[in-house]
């Protein structure tokens, strides 16, 4: 078997990227150590807003990890040929993003040194407890799936493995959405719609990440994605973005239907300061309407970079959406005495404030660095560059001329 050698420029680029990713990861780890040493007093988190920026980034990565596998699933489970060459990269990114997301969440624990207790204890009434089972099995199934794709002797089993991983990722994201959906105490959560909403969010965010990684890899290899494939993928991203918007609208309408939730909705959508700004400006405008415009404008989507910008905006919108959902949901006070004005030394009845501190920001970005570093190494070692076969595309009906 002939292995293509890297050019000196490619070698240099690899090591520069590796060093960059390593540096960002190291800074993130140092920030985690700093938080662990001095306690969460050095963060912006409080006893009202106790899940902060690390949770926004960590949960984003965990949700997107499930979604990025969608690309492989469309190929293996639904038999779409154009997606098959992308399956290995899709699987690799799924494993890496889940690892990076979990790294952030675990490094933010008050006692990260005790994480093995959680891994070895089973509490089936805890959604976190389910996740202790869901995540390792996901790693295993996607690993198995990659094996069936890469090893000719195992090729016969790739459909079964792909199907198992597909089902499991749906279960896993149901679990992530249910972390909030099963919380009865808070106005922002306690909704059955959160599980399917998280699944559709995973589709959009995962595909957006995939498109950006694919675009970067193609650029570094001086390759251009075939317009027919590009069109197919951008339409899929557009559909997912629109579907997320649909779920978000239904989620808020459901809340507005219940009179007791109106105050919360007013807070999130109108009067809550940073949260309405991030919701309307970050999620709706930047993360939804602008990408949809870029993806569906008949002239613009064909321009170089338009799909990538739309993908990047989808990610920005997703982070804004999670920030509003996770932090805004905690900032709104618990309603213990309906119809009463409440005050206390523990800030009952008051809107919680939260400003992320530098260590939290560095830990969050460090998690992205861990994902980036693993991706750089993974795609180089495993050579998972998606390559389209023109004959296959013609055969699949993507090329008409």
């Amino acid at each position: 078997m002939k292995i293509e050698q890297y050019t000196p420029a490619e070698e240099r680029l690899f090591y520069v990227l590796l060093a960059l990713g390593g540096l960002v990861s190291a800074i993130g780890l140092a920030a985690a150590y700093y938080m662990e040493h001095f306690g969460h007093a050095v963060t912006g988190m409080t006893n009202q807003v106790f899940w902060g920026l690390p949770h926004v980034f960590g949960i984003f990565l965990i949700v997107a990890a499930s979604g990025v596998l969608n690309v492989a699933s469309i190929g293996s489970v639904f038999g779409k040929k154009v997606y098959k060459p992308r399956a290995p990269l899709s699987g690799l990114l799924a494993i890496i993003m889940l690892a990076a997301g979990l790294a952030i969440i675990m490094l933010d624990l008050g006692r990260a040194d005790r994480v093995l207790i959680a891994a070895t204890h089973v509490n089936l009434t805890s959604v976190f407890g389910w996740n202790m089972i869901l995540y390792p099995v996901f790693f295993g199934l996607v690993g198995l799936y990659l094996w069936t794709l890469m090893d000719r002797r195992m090729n016969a089993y790739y459909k079964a493995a792909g199907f198992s991983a597909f089902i499991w990722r749906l279960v896993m994201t149901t679990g992530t959405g249910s972390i909030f959906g099963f919380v009865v105490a808070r106005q922002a959560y306690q909704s059955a719609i959160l599980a399917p909403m998280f699944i559709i969010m995973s589709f959009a965010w995962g595909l957006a990440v995939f498109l950006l990684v694919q675009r970067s890899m193609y650029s570094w290899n001086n390759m251009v994605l075939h317009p027919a494939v590009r069109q197919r993928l951008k339409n899929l991203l557009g559909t997912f973005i629109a579907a997320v918007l649909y779920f978000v609208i239904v989620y808020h309408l459901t809340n507005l239907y219940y009179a007791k939730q109106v105050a919360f909705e007013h807070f999130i959508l109108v009067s809550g300061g940073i949260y309405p700004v991030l919701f309307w400006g970050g999620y709706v405008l930047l993360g939804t309407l602008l990408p949809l415009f870029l993806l569906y404008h008949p002239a613009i989507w064909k321009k170089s970079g338009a799909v990538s910008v739309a993908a990047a905006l989808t990610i920005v919108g997703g982070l804004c959406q999670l920030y509003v959902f996770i932090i805004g949901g905690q900032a709104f006070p618990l309603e213990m005495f309906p119809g009463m004005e409440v005050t206390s030394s523990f800030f009952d009845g008051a809107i919680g404030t939260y400003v992320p501190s530098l260590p939290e920001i560095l830990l969050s970005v460090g998690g992205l660095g861990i994902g980036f570093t693993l991706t750089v190494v993974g795609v180089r070692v495993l050579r998972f560059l998606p390559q389209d076969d023109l004959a296959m595309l013609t055969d699949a009906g993507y090329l008409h001329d």
Partner: protein
Amino acid sequence: MSERNQTEQDSGNGGASRRNFIGAVAAAGGLAAIAPGIHLVQVSQARPAGEGASKAVRWGMLIDTTKCASGCNDCVKACATENGINETVKDARQGSQWIRKIDIKEVKTGTTHSLPMMCQHCANPPCVDVCPTGASMKRADGIVLVDRHICIGCRYCMLACPYKARSFVHQALTEQNPEVPRGQGCVESCTFCVHRIDKGQQPACVETCTQAGHNAMLFGDLNDPNSEIARRVAQVTTTQVRADLKLDLGVRYQGI
């Protein structure tokens, strides 16, 4: 017996002084037996060491808000002293509060109430449901606790608690009460002063409230029909906060 009498007679004066000595020892011993006896009135309900908490008991608290004055913080101070919550925090929002006073005002009528709020010791505690390590647990006698030695500090229980009853320790602690272990990076909440209850004493907040003459807090076994709390709960209308959640609370309020 006769042999011993003979010996005492033989010893003459020496025997008399020994009798005096034995008498003195017996008197001292009796006094020693009586003195703890006074204490035993209190510890008579104490559980023998090594014996597990009983399911037959359901510890609970009844708070009469009509007797709880706004601005009075006696229970809060007693809790802090008893449980060693004495750390200085830079940001008040990061400080632990196991019990706090809440002032509520009905928007339409302007009626006001003041009441202490703490862990409600639910029979169906959401914090225990969500805990991934088993650190959040409910004892057989209904007391909800956090095992500070296996808590990983994920704060999921804080998200799940409808009463904002839990605090996360944001910094290193010193000068702790050995009976009440606390620790940086762990979640904590009101224990009903479990270390006192197991010795047959009242929770510190209740004891202080009673000693100060407020009598706004009553503690006891809800399962014991002869206990004062069970009788009061049977006689007066009491409220469980967020009763809609059906968590079956150990803490009940009267007057709101």
